[in-house]
Structures are given as structure tokens and as C-alpha cells.
């Protein structure tokens, strides 16, 4: 395999979209891009991936007979909204806890769907009722919650001092975090 072919292969692999020979040439410089593409395409015959051309643009794609391994829909796992993340954190730190208590700690009401999302994700569960007027439902986290977040037990949650030292207890960063949590639209 020539250095030039190696370069063409790497550029196509790293590209975000199919590339025309001209676009490839802009990255790899002098050389016969067409010939390199032909050699590469032949080399990948029989592999799990093919080098193919569509409308003059080249890209790697999974061999058609292996398409069943691929995602069927373009739908990606959804990010937990900020409200749901806060709600989950409160449950984890205070469980077992009622909805009213979650709202009191959060200082903001939570919408109906928020806890449902956590239960659907398999991270929160109901944990009986509190023996107080109205017998409100209690919520707690699940073993899946611990394993998803890499915690051995709830005792491994960072304490307030840890959060503070790590710079995670600071309203100044609220904007940055809000961006990172990128509300998924079910914000309340």
C-alpha cells in the first residue's frame, strides 16, 4: 500500500461526508486520486466495509449484507433534560423522598412527566408510601442507576464539600451547565 493510498484512505475515513476526488486532493496533495480510489475500493472487496461512490463522491459504508447490525432509525438515545437530571440527583441524595419534598428541595415545581422519564429510564422506582397525611408515594433510585453512573453504592455520591472543591457547587457556572444539559424540551 503506497503512502498516497494510505493518505486517501485516512481522509475518507475521517471525513464527515462523502468526498469528491477534488476534495480529497485538497487534503492529500499531488497524486492520482482516481487511481488510488480504484485500488482502495478493490482492496476492500470482501471486507465488512466497502468503499463506494455515489454521484461522484466517495465514502466508506457497511457491506449491504451486514446492514442488520446497524441502527434501524436515525433516532439517538435522548439526553436527560435539566429538570429530570436535577430531580434524579435529588432522589439519589435524599431517598426515599416524596414529590413534594423533591419540589421543596429543588425550589421549583416538577412536571408530571419528569419522574415518569426517570422511571422509564430505569433509574428511579417507587418505594412505598410515607405514613403521613395523604400517604404520598416515595421515590428511590434503582441498582441500574448505580451501575449507569458508576457508583458502588449511594455512599459514593460526592458530598457537598467534594462538590464545592470540584467547582460543582457554584451558581456562576449555571449557564455553562445549562448548555451542557441542553434541555430536551420537557423543561418545566
Amino acid at each position: 500500500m503506497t503512502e498516497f493510498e494510505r493518505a486517501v484512505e485516512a481522509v475518507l475515513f475521517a471525513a464527515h461526508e462523502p468526498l469528491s476526488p477534488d476534495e480529497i486532493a485538497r487534503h492529500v496533495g499531488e497524486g492520482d486520486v482516481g487511481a488510488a480510489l480504484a485500488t482502495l475500493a478493490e482492496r476492500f472487496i470482501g471486507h465488512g466495509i466497502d468503499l463506494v461512490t455515489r454521484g461522484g463522491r466517495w465514502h466508506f459504508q457497511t457491506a449491504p449484507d451486514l446492514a442488520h447490525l446497524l441502527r434501524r432509525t436515525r433516532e439517538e438515545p435522548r439526553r436527560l433534560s435539566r429538570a429530570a437530571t436535577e430531580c434524579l440527583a435529588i432522589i439519589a441524595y435524599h431517598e426515599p423522598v416524596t414529590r413534594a419534598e423533591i419540589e421543596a428541595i429543588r425550589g421549583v415545581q416538577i412536571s408530571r412527566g419528569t419522574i415518569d422519564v426517570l422511571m422509564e429510564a430505569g433509574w428511579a422506582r417507587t418505594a412505598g408510601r410515607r405514613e403521613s397525611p395523604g400517604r404520598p408515594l416515595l421515590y428511590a433510585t434503582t441498582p441500574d442507576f448505580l451501575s449507569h453512573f458508576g457508583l458502588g453504592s449511594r455512599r459514593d455520591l460526592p458530598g457537598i464539600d467534594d462538590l464545592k472543591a470540584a467547582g460543582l457547587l457554584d451558581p456562576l457556572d449555571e449557564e455553562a451547565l445549562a448548555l451542557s444539559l441542553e434541555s430536551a424540551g420537557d423543561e418545566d
Partner: protein
Amino acid sequence: MERSEFFDGAAGDDALTLSLDGWEGPLDLLLTLARNQKVDLREISILALVDQYLAYLDGAKSLKLEIAADYLVMAAWLAYLKSCLLLPSDPVADPSPEELAWRLQQRLARLDAMREAGARLMGRDRLGRDVFARGNPEGLRLVRSSAWQSTPYQLFAAYGLVEARTQPVMHVVAHRAVMALDEAIERVARLLGGALDWTRLEAFLPASLDPGYARSALASSFVAVLELARQGRLELAQEAPFAPLELRASGR
């Protein structure tokens, strides 16, 4: 050590003369001083290093720079170490001064090693900078059941925000030692006495290790000097912008 020596001598490096803000703590300062002394940290003279550190702090003090407490804690410990090293050896001292000196050397070597390790890590072929993953992967059929994503960072940060948001806001006015203007006028006037020699403003300041108080004293004394000059009780001179302010009792 004279100020000129402080600037031109041991330090050498410009960065050393700026301020303490540029240092990531006393150990960082010590390591830089040690590095300037010898490239091989195992060969440095701890006694010389202690002197350089203390001289550096003296220099910073004479410039009225604010000195954080941890630098002073380190200075006190180093002064103690130095006295132990100079005293006739006490066979029952545990740990021995030599042991303490060796530990300091080891701490410097450790910080140095981590600094270099960090630089070597950053210089590696990094994914997304030097080597690249597939640009447009098709994605795999979901095997895991959870359709929701979140990370420990997001979880902890979310709780930190809740805590920060709901903590009662408290405004604490910290007690700060200050020198009042009246006090400064009285003090400068008294110290100036009948002095006819030009004297720098700094000489009229009280010795204090409290950087807050030192700054307050400097500010108040400066205003006091202006007021006394206005009253014609002293003369004020400055050779160039930012040169030292000098004063003497008015000849009248």
C-alpha cells in the same frame, strides 16, 4: 538582601520579579527556584534554596505585594528547617533535619515529575487532534435498553446547582483591619517629625504581615501625605511616574 540584589541576583528570571500571582502555590515557587539553581533536583542545596525562598518573600513584602497565608506557612516551615540544619545535630531528633530536607527534595521531585508527565500526556497523539475516529459512523443497532443518556458529571453538577440555588444567601461582611485616615495623618506627622532628609513613603508604613492591613495603611498614608502637603507641613517628590514617592518635613 538589598532590593537591587533581589532583582538582579538570585532570581535572574524576569518572571520571578513580577508578583506572587503567577505562582501556583509555594511549592511551585520553590520548584522554580530550585530549577534555577540546578537542573538536577537531586543536586540542589536545600540551605541555599531556603535562603532564596525567604529572600524572594522579603522582596515581595518590600514591594508591598499581597502574600497569601500558605506562602507564609511554607516560609515558617523552611526557616525552622534551616535552623535545624544549622544547629549541632541532635541524635534523638525524629525525623532528623536531613530526613526533613530529603522529604522536601522528594516533594519537589514529585511535583516536577507530574508537571513533566502532564506535558508528555498533552504531547501524545491525541484522538480528535492528531488521530481521528470515523467521521460519520452509521451507528449500531441499540442493544442496551436505556434510551436515555446522562453522565455522572451532569448528575453531580445538577445537584450542586440545586444546592447552590436553594442555600440561603448570606452576605458576610468580613472584619478587615484598616488604618483610618485620621490615624494615618497623625502617624505620618509624628514619624516625619523634623526630618529634613528625603524619605520614602514606605518607611512610614507599619510592619504588618496582614496584607489587607498593609494595603489599607499604604492607601491611607498616601492620602495623609497629600493632605499634609496641602497643609504645607511636608514636601513631596517623585522623580518619574511610578518612581518611589519621597517626602520630607517642610522647611518652614
